[in-house]
């Protein structure tokens, strides 16, 4: 009950956010362990990211990718260890955006694209306040930034997969997020939609927004990001794809699900870590 009152007190201040310490890393994770009742999700994970960095997170299903994102977002409290965003715990920030997997969203919910993007403003509005002209302007701008201005009044069930994902990025922009955690945003999208999203990620990088993207596509993870994080409960590597995608590390991460084939200069990794929703990845 005291927690609830404390929550209320905090949220009654509009735009409430924890101060950002100067020079503190945008994200610093130290000795993070998360234990669930049926096992360990993350064990002794430590790393830090620099501002504006774009990092891919790969690892087999159940490797703890979503858990890691949720701990960073302040949704799950870690069993041990610490997360600090710009020098403070995640719980006080509203600058962290978690973009859910598309299959975890109720697309029949009676809202349109603008409604969803406006949700990003709610944290800054404060309780009992309605959106002002400035908020509507931010929402309109966010929709333009992701190329969805024409679909502003579209019901969300009528969007394509790529449009759905761009809508969530627009919501994060409306939230004025500085750290974006995207849970498998590229899964199930065609090449054009994926490219549209990479285009937006490039623009985010220019704005110094730090982005973590979990994916099953090792090729994209290696080629389209500044650094790759290989995760299987433990942090198996974080660095350039050359440093991380070594035979030993890949086999440690994927075990029997991975076949390594030497193809000339290149090392070819053949994997099929199919996901819960049944989408195929190679």
């Amino acid at each position: 009950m005291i927690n609830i009152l404390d929550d209320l007190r905090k949220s009654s201040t509009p735009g409430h956010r924890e101060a950002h310490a100067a020079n503190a890393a945008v994200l610093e994770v130290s000795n993070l362990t998360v234990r669930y009742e049926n096992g360990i999700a993350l064990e002794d994970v430590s790393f830090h990211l620099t501002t504006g960095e774009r990092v891919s997170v790969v690892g087999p299903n159940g490797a703890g990718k979503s858990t890691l994102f949720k701990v960073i977002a302040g949704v799950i409290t870690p069993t041990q260890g610490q997360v600090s965003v710009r020098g403070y715990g995640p719980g006080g920030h509203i600058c962290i955006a978690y973009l859910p997997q598309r299959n975890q969203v109720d697309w029949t919910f009676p809202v349109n694209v603008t409604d969803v993007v406006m949700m990003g403003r709610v944290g800054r509005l404060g309780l009992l306040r309605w959106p002002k002209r400035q908020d509507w302007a931010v929402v309109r701008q966010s929709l333009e930034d992701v190329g969805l201005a024409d679909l502003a009044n579209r019901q969300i069930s009528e969007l394509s997969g790529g449009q759905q994902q761009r809508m969530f990025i627009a919501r994060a922009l409306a939230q004025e997020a500085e750290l974006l955690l995207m849970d498998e945003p590229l899964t199930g999208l065609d090449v054009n939609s994926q490219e549209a999203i990479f285009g937006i990620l490039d623009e985010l990088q220019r704005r110094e927004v730090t982005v973590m993207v979990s994916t099953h596509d090792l090729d994209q993870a290696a080629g389209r990001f500044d650094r790759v994080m290989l995760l299987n409960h433990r942090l198996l590597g974080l660095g350039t794809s050359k440093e991380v995608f070594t035979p030993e590390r890949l086999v440690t991460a994927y075990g029997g699900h991975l076949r390594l084939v030497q193809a000339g200069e290149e090392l070819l990794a053949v994997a099929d870590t199919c996901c819960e929703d049944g989408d195929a990845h190679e």
Partner: protein
Amino acid sequence: MSSWLTWLLTPLNYPFMVRGFLAAWMVGVVCATVGTYVVLRGMAFFGDALAHAILPGLAVGYLVGGGARGPLFWWAMLAAVLSSIGIGAISKGTKIREDTAIGVVFAGMFALGIAMISTVRSYTVDLAHFLFGDVLGVSLSDLFLIGIFGGLIVITILLFYKEFLVLTFDPLLAVTLRLPARALEYLLFILIALAVVVSLQTVGIALMVAMLVTPAAAASLLTRRLPIMMTLAAVIASVSGVIGLYISYYANVASGAAVVLTSTAFFATIWLVRTVQKKRGVWDG
């Protein structure tokens, strides 16, 4: 005067009918507004359980008050608020699945209520009154309580519109925006509990879930915008309330059942029309 006008006006000669119409209309609006969230969050079973779980509260009030009707409202409110918080806490805090926890609590509480009331000799009559309501027995002071609490419920839902929207559509977003998610969730539980208490006399415990769910479900088939869904649900519910009472008056049918059957008919008609339209491709589904 034309005959249909006479037909419409005759029941209004009786003050108890006028009070019944007012009660049915207000309860319809309140339940439909709250019920929109019940439908969107998939909480129909929670609503049904909550209605049943207040019976022991009613029973205590009934035994303590020696059958006086006045204090029952407050006893029901106490029981409803405690049950909603209890069900919320149990379903969050244990390994048991939420619907199982609700089932256990609801059946246990309901049985306790029946056991308590059964200690009184005339218990079948009184039990029936609690189970099925009696909108025609609504007194002026009941009407005031319905108006005050119903108004509070609707105002709260409107005040917290954007917070409840975020909490319902994307609970994780509510947390990352640092909204007081737990407090909001309990607030919604309590609003549902209050709506149940306010509607108690109109439809009774057994049919309560229909007031919460049916109009909102019918409205959800007609629109894809939340504010419109809420408004349509309120309109369907209040129209059902009024038509139901006319049916009750002329066909001599139990009032609560007549109201619920009317809104069920609305739902069935809309569902049928939508399904046919979808098959023909008139509506894009």
